[in-house]
């Protein structure tokens, strides 16, 4: 009898999921593509620093972007932070991304935020080995202001090709 009561109790508790509701926050995902100049590709390996910029109308306390090699032969070999106070350390990333074609970058600082405007937040070092140009794609995932509220932002890529 006791065991029956316990079974009913456990089943009821299992069924009783919390009825909390949450509205999904609309966030406009933005994508920026950058294609390397074919003139710089001479059929030999080269290192290319790819600067990542973010632009927002509000101060940014946290950001997250995703970089993908869409076309061509290139792989990630290193990640560097910004010169902005509070963001000089390399952003967070999965070490598995090194020597691969995709990386998710994220950084935050609860004390110092990135001022409103356009700023370089990171540099990703790439190793290109193909004969053709490489297409990179940068996608915004999320950003928050200095108190943790989601904010819209844009992200851009720029290669130091010279």
């Amino acid at each position: 009898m006791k065991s029956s009561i316990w079974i009913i109790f456990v089943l009821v508790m299992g069924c009783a999921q919390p009825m909390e509701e949450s509205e999904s926050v609309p966030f406009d995902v933005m994508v920026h593509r950058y294609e390397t100049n074919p003139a710089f590709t001479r059929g030999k390996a080269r290192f290319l620093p790819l600067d990542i910029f973010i632009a927002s109308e509000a101060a940014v306390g946290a950001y997250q972007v995703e970089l993908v090699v869409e076309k061509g032969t290139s792989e990630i070999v290193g990640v560097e932070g910004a010169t902005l106070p509070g963001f000089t350390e390399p952003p967070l990333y999965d070490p598995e991304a090194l020597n691969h074609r995709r990386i998710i970058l994220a950084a935050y600082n609860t004390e110092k935020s990135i001022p409103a405007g356009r700023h370089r937040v990171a540099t990703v070092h790439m190793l290109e080995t193909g004969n053709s140009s490489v297409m990179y794609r940068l996608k915004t995932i999320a950003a928050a202001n200095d108190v943790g509220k989601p904010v819209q932002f844009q992200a851009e890529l720029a290669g130091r090709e010279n």
Partner: protein
Amino acid sequence: MSEHLTDFELELCRTGEMESSEHLALCPECAERLAQLEALVTRLQEPVQRPLSFNRVDEIVFKTIEQRVDVVTAQSVRRSRRRRMSYRWLGVAAAAGMFLFAGVYVFQSFGPSTASKNVTRSPLANDLNDDGQVNIIDVFQKARELERTGASDRNSQVELKQIAAQVVDLDNGDER
């Protein structure tokens, strides 16, 4: 003195088939042997008292076994009846649980609270702001919460690092 009497001669003397000899009257040893022989015959002629017949022993043993079997059977019946009852209650409980589960599922799936609204439920444990994904905003909010509460213990920091690692994990995102 002549030779002692043999056992046979003593027996004949006892039964009177032979007259008592002069030797028997003078020899205390033969007189003693004759007395022993008579006593033996007397004891053999007495009715023998047997302690218990085998039939009686069997009867007692079987009765004891029967009593024991009765007790064990009664206990077994009681136990089996109790077990049958518990199985019956278990079945009732399972049926009630399934009925409740089905009711809750139907209510949550087709009930008015979710049917009329566009609601998204976050299945992610670390989705602190309930926006349907674990991202850097959740890490930021967690870090702020830890700062606000002053929780600087190792477990809190490990938890924060785990969420951060989940955020940048390559298994996340659109292109896995």
